[in-house]
C-alpha cells in the first residue's frame, strides 16, 4: 500500500502493526478503540496471522505475555478502564523482560467514566501503572500518519530494550480519519531473541520466562539491571517536536490531539504579538527533559494543556526543576479544550510579563 488512503486512527494502528510484523492480536472491544479490534479481526485471517477476541482484557494481556514469550510480535489494545484491567499483566510482562505493544485510546474517567476523548491516564501510562518498579516506553502520536510511524517504532523499541511499549492515544486520534501513506517498514538492527521459549530443538538449554523471585537479593539485582537499561532508554530515546520555540517567551506544551489544538492557539497568539511556542513531547516516557530545560532559557512561563485535571504538568515542573512558573489549561471528562480557551489563558499569563 504505497499510495494514500483515508484511514481512522484505530485502523492505522492495526495496519501499521501488521506492516511491522505483528501476527498476534488479542483484543476485547471497548469504545473508542473498537475499530482496531474489528480491523484486526478482518485482516489477520487474510495474512496468516491470529486475531483472538479474548473473554476479558485480563485474558488478552496474558495471551500477549504468552505470544511475546515465544518471541512473536504481539499487541493488545483497549481504552482507559480496560487498561486498568490489563495492569497486572503489563507488570508481569515488564517483570519478565518481554517486548509487547499495548495501545490505550483514552476516554474520560475515573471509573467507567465516559466514551469521549481524554488524556487522564497519563500518570498510569508513564509512572508504571501496575505494581512494582518498572516503566513502559510511552509514545504519543498526534496525527494518523504519526500513528503509523510510531507503531513501527513501538515494535522495534520493544524488541530492542525487551520491554513493553504503550501507544497512548485518545478518542479523537482513534476516531478521526486522515489521509495517510503506509510506507515499507524497515526495521532497526535488532538483537536475536535468544531468550525466547520457541523450542530448543534439542540443541540448547531451555529458556524460562519468569517474574517470580523468592530471594530478595536476586530480585533486587534484576531490578537494578532493568533500571540500567531504563537509564539507557532515557539517554537515547527521548523525542519531542518544537514549534516556534527559538524566541518563545510563553512555551505552551501539550501531547497528542491537544497539541494540534495548541498549535492553532500558538499561531493565533503570534498574530496578536505574543511570543508563544509549542513543545510537544512525542515520548512521554522517557520524558524529553532536556528540551524543556532548553526552552526555559527563553521562556518566562510554561502553559501545559491537557485533557485531564493536570498530570503531565508535574513532569514539566520536574524537568525544569520549577525554574519557571508552569500554568495549566485543561478540560476533563471527555470535554475538548478550544483554541480560544488556550489563547485566553495564555493572554492572561502574558499580561504579567
Amino acid at each position: 500500500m504505497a499510495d494514500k488512503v483515508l484511514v481512522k486512527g484505530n485502523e492505522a494502528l492495526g495496519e501499521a502493526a501488521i506492516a511491522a510484523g505483528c501476527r498476534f492480536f488479542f483484543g476485547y472491544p471497548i469504545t473508542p478503540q473498537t475499530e482496531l479490534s474489528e480491523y484486526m479481526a478482518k485482516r489477520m485471517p487474510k495474512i496468516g496471522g491470529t486475531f483472538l477476541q479474548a473473554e476479558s482484557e485480563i485474558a488478552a494481556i496474558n495471551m500477549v505475555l504468552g505470544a511475546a514469550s515465544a518471541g512473536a510480535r504481539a499487541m493488545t489494545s483497549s481504552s482507559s478502564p480496560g487498561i486498568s484491567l490489563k495492569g497486572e499483566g503489563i507488570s508481569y510482562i515488564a517483570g519478565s523482560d518481554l517486548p509487547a505493544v499495548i495501545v490505550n485510546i483514552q476516554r474520560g474517567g475515573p471509573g467507567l467514566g465516559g466514551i469521549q476523548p481524554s488524556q487522564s491516564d497519563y500518570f498510569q501510562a508513564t509512572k508504571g501503572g501496575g505494581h512494582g518498579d518498572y516503566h513502559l516506553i510511552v509514545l504519543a502520536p498526534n496525527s494518523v500518519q504519526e500513528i503509523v510511524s510510531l507503531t513501527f517504532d513501538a515494535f522495534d523499541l520493544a524488541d530492542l530494550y525487551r520491554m513493553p511499549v504503550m501507544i497512548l492515544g485518545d478518542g479523537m486520534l482513534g476516531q478521526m480519519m486522515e489521509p495517510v501513506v503506509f510506507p515499507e517498514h524497515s526495521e532497526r538492527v535488532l538483537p536475536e531473541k535468544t531468550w525466547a521459549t520457541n523450542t530448543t530443538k534439542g540443541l540448547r538449554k531451555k529458556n524460562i520466562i519468569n517474574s517470580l523471585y523468592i530471594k530478595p537479593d536476586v530480585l533486587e539485582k534484576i531490578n537494578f539491571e532493568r533500571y540500567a537499561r531504563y537509564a539507557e532508554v532515557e539517554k537515547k530515546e527521548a523525542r519531542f517536536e518544537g514549534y516556534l520555540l527559538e524566541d518563545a517567551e510563553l512555551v505552551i506544551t501539550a501531547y497528542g490531539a491537544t497539541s494540534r489544538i495548541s498549535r492553532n492557539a500558538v499561531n493565533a497568539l503570534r498574530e496578536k504579538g505574543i511570543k508563544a511556542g509549542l513543545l510537544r513531547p512525542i515520548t512521554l516516557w522517557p520524558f524529553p527533559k532536556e528540551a524543556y530545560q532548553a526552552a526555559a532559557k527563553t521562556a518566562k512561563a510554561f502553559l501545559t494543556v491537557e485533557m485531564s485535571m493536570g498530570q503531565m504538568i508535574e513532569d514539566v515542573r520536574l524537568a525544569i526543576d520549577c525554574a519557571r512558573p508552569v500554568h495549566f489549561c485543561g478540560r476533563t471528562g471527555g470535554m475538548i479544550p478550544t483554541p480560544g480557551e488556550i489563547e485566553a489563558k495564555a493572554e492572561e499569563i502574558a499580561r504579567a510579563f
Partner: protein
Amino acid sequence: MYFPQKRITIYAGHYGSGKTNLAVNHALALRREGKRVKILDLDIVNPYFRTKDSEALFRREGIELIASEFAGTNVDIPAIPAAAQSAFDDREASVIIDVGGDDSGALALGRYQRAINDEGDFDMLLVVNRFRPLARTPEDAAEIARSIEGASRIRFTGVAANSNLGGETDAETILSSEEYTKSVSALLGLPVVYRAVREDLREALGNKLERIQPVKITGKIWF
C-alpha cells in the same frame, strides 16, 4: 439534483464511506423542496460519528430526527427508539435512513425489512469510497455490498460514489476514482445514482463526469 425521490432512501455501505454526510445532505435537499422529512439514525455500531451530531441543524431546518435518546451521550448503547416505526407508518413523510457500517451495522435495518420491502417505494444506495482501507478494490466493495444485503435482507438499488481523501480531496481525487466506481457498478449490476462532490470542487469538474451531486461537509470537525 440527483438525490433519489422515492419515499424512503436508505444509505448503507462500508465503514467510514460517508453515509451520514450524504444522508444529511439528502435530507436537507428534500426539505428545501418543501417536503416533510424524517431522518432515521439506525447506526447502533459507531457511537462517535452519527446523524445526531447535526441535531441543531435539523431543528433549524425543520427536519425530524429519529435517533436513540442515548445517541452521542456517555451511555450510548445499541438501542433503536420506538419512534423509528413512525418512519414506516407515516407514509406522507419522506424518510432518509442512515445505516451503520458494514453488515454488522446493517443488521439493525433488517428489523424493518418487511415494512420496507412490502411498501416497495424505496432506494437503497451503496456508498463507496475507494480510499478506505478495506474497500480499496471494486471486489472488496462488492463483497461488502452482498454481506449488507444478507444482513438487512434488502437489495441495493444503486451506487452513490463518494471517493475522497478528506481535506486533501481535489478534482483529480474524484476523476481518478471513476474507474473504480464503474467497476463496482458493473460487478453489482447497479446504476451510479450520483457522484458526491464537495461543493467547492464542483466547478473544476465541469462536465467531465455525469450525475455530479454537490454536497456540504457536516458533523464534527475537531481541528
